[in-house]
């Protein structure tokens, strides 16, 4: 019996593919977002609104990660963006290979913005880099204010957070201050938008943020 030193990360393969994706994105000048949240926080609704609001100005495409169905993809397509659906077949996250396998279905250089809706899950997606420029978290008021402290890794990694479903605040005992304080404690640079994708409240700030990020990537193309 003898020992062999291995010393490699189990995620190395995913990370290498993510880096490869990232090179594509930078080269083609398309800004790529990885949108993450727990189940039902409102990712698809936010996407529908965002596509409606910005598709007159930018060329937008969407990748939908879904465990089983194509319902989310159909909703986003109806809002007017080309969509690719990735069924993860039960897997709890998207990985860089799935993104890579689908990259060449879009003419990336003809896009300004590519949004990837990850599988609704507060744990696993954080571990798998897809090659995106930024991770954006959605937290909804119906999930409870304790989520940032219970699932710190996802919030630690995000560049921005949308606190969604603020239209429901009058009916809930959601402690907005605690949720935002905990999220900021994990991530001082987190840009936070309090929105209702249902009523459209607060969405302008989110769109302005996106436009800035798109412009930055374009400028360096």
């Amino acid at each position, binding site marked *: 019996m003898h020992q062999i030193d291995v010393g490699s*990360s*189990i995620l*190395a393969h995913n990370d290498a593919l993510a880096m490869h994706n990232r090179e594509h994105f930078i080269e083609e000048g398309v800004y790529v977002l990885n949108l993450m949240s727990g189940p039902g926080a409102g990712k698809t609704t936010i996407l529908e609104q965002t596509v409606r609001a910005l598709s007159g100005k930018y060329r937008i495409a969407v990748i939908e990660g879904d465990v089983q169905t194509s319902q989310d993809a159909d909703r986003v397509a109806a809002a007017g963006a080309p969509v690719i659906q990735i069924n993860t077949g039960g897997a709890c996250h998207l990985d860089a290979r799935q993104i890579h396998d689908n990259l060449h279905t879009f003419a990336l250089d003809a896009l300004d913005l590519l949004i990837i809706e990850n599988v609704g899950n507060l*744990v696993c997606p954080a571990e798998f880099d897809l090659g995106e420029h930024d991770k954006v978290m959605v937290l909804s008021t119906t999930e409870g204010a304790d989520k940032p402290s219970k699932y710190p890794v996802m919030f*630690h990694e995000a560049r921005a957070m949308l606190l969604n479903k603020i239209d429901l605040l009058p009916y809930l005992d959601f402690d907005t201050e605690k949720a935002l304080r905990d999220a900021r404690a*994990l991530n001082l640079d987190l840009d936070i938008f309090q929105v209702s994708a249902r009523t459209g409240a607060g969405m302008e700030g989110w769109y302005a943020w996106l436009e800035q990020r798109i412009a930055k990537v374009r400028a360096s193309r």
Partner: protein
Amino acid sequence: MHEASVAKDLLDLVLAACGGQRILRVGLELGELSTVVPDALRFAWEVVPAGTLAEGSAVDIARIPVRVRCPSCSFTGHPVSIFEGCPRCGTISVEVLAGRELRVTTIEVADHASD
């Protein structure tokens, strides 16, 4: 929740490293911040390597504590939690140096097929 897919990637790694010898033991480092649950990974490892050189191998999991660096006062060490920020000056948003590992360190292999 993705321990089965982690186990598959782990299997690919150790099979590539074992030089065609039977694998007896796999040593892993798992950071405290990793989302992988040790027991679930051990369980997946009882199933995933079936029919390969790693079938029946044990898996040793070493947990790696979180270590941070404070951007303000340069403190380096273990925080109370990553929520508490820097234990010396209270600065929040410390840089995570360790605790996210998911690595194979070593494997133990049999010298002969008969071992």
